């Protein structure tokens, strides 16, 4: 059973954000197919009414705080201790694979989260997974960090190699594996679909940008605004024949739509399709002249053409 814990809400400063917006983000994250969401004590006190304790892991400083805040699905505490309840997860930082030798001293901990492992993918990660599983008999979770830009890949490999518990954050916030990427990988590689409708990622993206003031890159995997833009002649032609030719999943799966961009790399199919969209009928013999003109204008502007610019040029060839 794959259990994903999301720690997005522990990765940014929410102090200036309205309580209802944070509650909304909490609820949306729970709709992505994750098992648990992790929050800290101040955040719990801020959005207490919205919190579903059965689906929430509380980050605490001392194991004794479990008694003050009872009822959560789990508790996470740095290093924890041996004499603690079953639902306490001890968090151990391992930055470098060479430090892995040190973790044997924590074998008595019942539940463990290993955080870090940044460079593990550079080494024999499959056998390392096996060794880690042998060391810990209880609940074992990993939380890969992204210093080597491999956190998502490591998270995916952990789960694909029968690791059950994994910790991620939306968009990889805070330097972790990206929730939306892992969910999509498991959907494609393992047919794991706890949530059929992933359009919730769009809502999370918008809310996340609003709350953090950060703008997510247009080409960010799975959630970027421009990942379903398509311009090159070969790709447009292939997609129009069958979208799976050049798209790993349908845009609608993540609540998006395809956008044909006209520019330097456009071909005949794209131009004809766009003209049809606007009801402009070009003279057939002038299509190649139109393509040349588009290319020239696009190079002059140093970018693709806006639809209005394209139509204005195209009308001269109709």
């Amino acid at each position, binding site marked *: 059973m794959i259990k994903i814990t999301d720690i997005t809400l522990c990765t940014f400063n929410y102090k200036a954000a309205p309580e209802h917006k944070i509650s909304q983000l909490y609820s949306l994250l729970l709709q992505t197919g994750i098992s648990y969401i992790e929050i800290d004590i101040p955040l719990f006190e801020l959005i207490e009414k919205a919190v579903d304790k059965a689906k929430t892991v509380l980050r605490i400083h001392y194991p004794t705080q479990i008694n003050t805040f009872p009822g959560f699905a789990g508790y996470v505490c740095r290093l924890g201790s041996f004499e603690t309840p079953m639902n306490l997860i001890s968090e151990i930082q391992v930055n470098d694979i060479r430090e892995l030798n040190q973790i044997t001293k924590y074998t008595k901990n019942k539940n463990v989260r290993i955080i870090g492992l940044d460079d593990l*993918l*550079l080494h024999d990660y*499959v056998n390392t997974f096996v060794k880690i599983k042998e060391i810990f008999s209880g609940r074992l979770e990993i939380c890969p960090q992204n210093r*080597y*830009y*491999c956190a*998502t*890949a*490591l998270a*995916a*490999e952990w789960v*694909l190699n029968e690791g059950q518990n994994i910790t991620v954050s939306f*968009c*990889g*916030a805070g330097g972790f594996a*990206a929730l939306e*990427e892992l969910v*999509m*990988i498991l959907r*494609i*590689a393992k047919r794991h679909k706890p949530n059929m409708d992933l359009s919730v990622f769009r809502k999370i993206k918008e809310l996340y940008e609003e709350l953090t003031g*950060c*703008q*997510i*890159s*247009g*080409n*960010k*995997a*799975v959630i*970027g605004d*421009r*990942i379903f*833009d*398509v*311009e*090159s002649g*070969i*790709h447009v032609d*292939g997609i129009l*024949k*069958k979208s*799976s*030719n*050049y*798209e*790993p999943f349908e845009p609608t799966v993540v609540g998006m739509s395809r*956008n044909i*961009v006209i*520019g*330097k*790399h456009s071909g005949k199919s794209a131009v004809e399709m766009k003209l049809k969209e606007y009801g402009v009928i070009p003279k057939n013999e002038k299509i190649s002249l139109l393509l*040349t003109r588009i*290319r*020239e204008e*696009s*190079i002059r502007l*140093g*970018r*693709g053409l806006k639809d209005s610019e394209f139509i204005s040029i195209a009308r001269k060839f109709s």
Partner: protein
Amino acid sequence: MKEKKYIIDTTLRDGEQTPGYAFSKAQKVELAKLMDDAGIYQIEAGIPAMGNYEKETICEIMSQRKKALISTWNRMSRDDINNSFECRPDIIHITAPISYIHIYSKLNKNKTWLKKTLQECVFMAKDKGYEVTVGFEDASRADITFIISMANLLSDLEVKSVRFADTVGVLTPSRTHQCIREIIENVDIPVGIHAHNDLGMALANSLIAAKAGALYIDTTIAGIGERAGNCDLYRFITAAGGVFNIKPCHSDAADVNKKAQNLLFSKLQKTEVI
């Protein structure tokens, strides 16, 4: 001793295919110079079949290069390859759709057609004395035995290397390792990796491919490319520089990354943060 690996930068071809991007001749020539100076092994300079402007650009890149090898990208088409001849590149790269999805559903052709046409194109370029490389488009969704059979054929034709392209970005690291090993263990031909970032793993898959024995790694500046982009040059060097003997070194990669971004993206709206 660290294993030697080679960067093939495709910013000027696949990178520029990012929707909305249109580099000028001056930008492309300047970027090629920056990459050449940084010690990048091979620069995929563009697609001559796009027209005279592109051909003039590639010719200019050729005339100014010092050490880097310059390649052109071609479909399996005599016209494309004839256009490449006009640029006189070091390497003619021919892309061959290798998955059944692409062969049957995109092109409405069959495997016999693919073999015949690819051989004709390779002969055509080889006849003129060109070094030829072949890219297997959509290899990650292809039948590995068919890939191996085609790679064997290309090895016999003295093609310099084959490129394993994860065209729609659906590879996982373990699958990447398995595919690259299968080719290397069955065919005597150097292999390259061309990864896309649709699932956020282009860099990881490139790294694993290199570990599995791939000699050539395709990258772009800032990871630009179709959809979610390609393997980011600077980040790849950051992650892999300690493990492989690879150029550019980290400081040169940082330098070329910074200068290239100023050169290519200053005109575009820059809003990206994450």
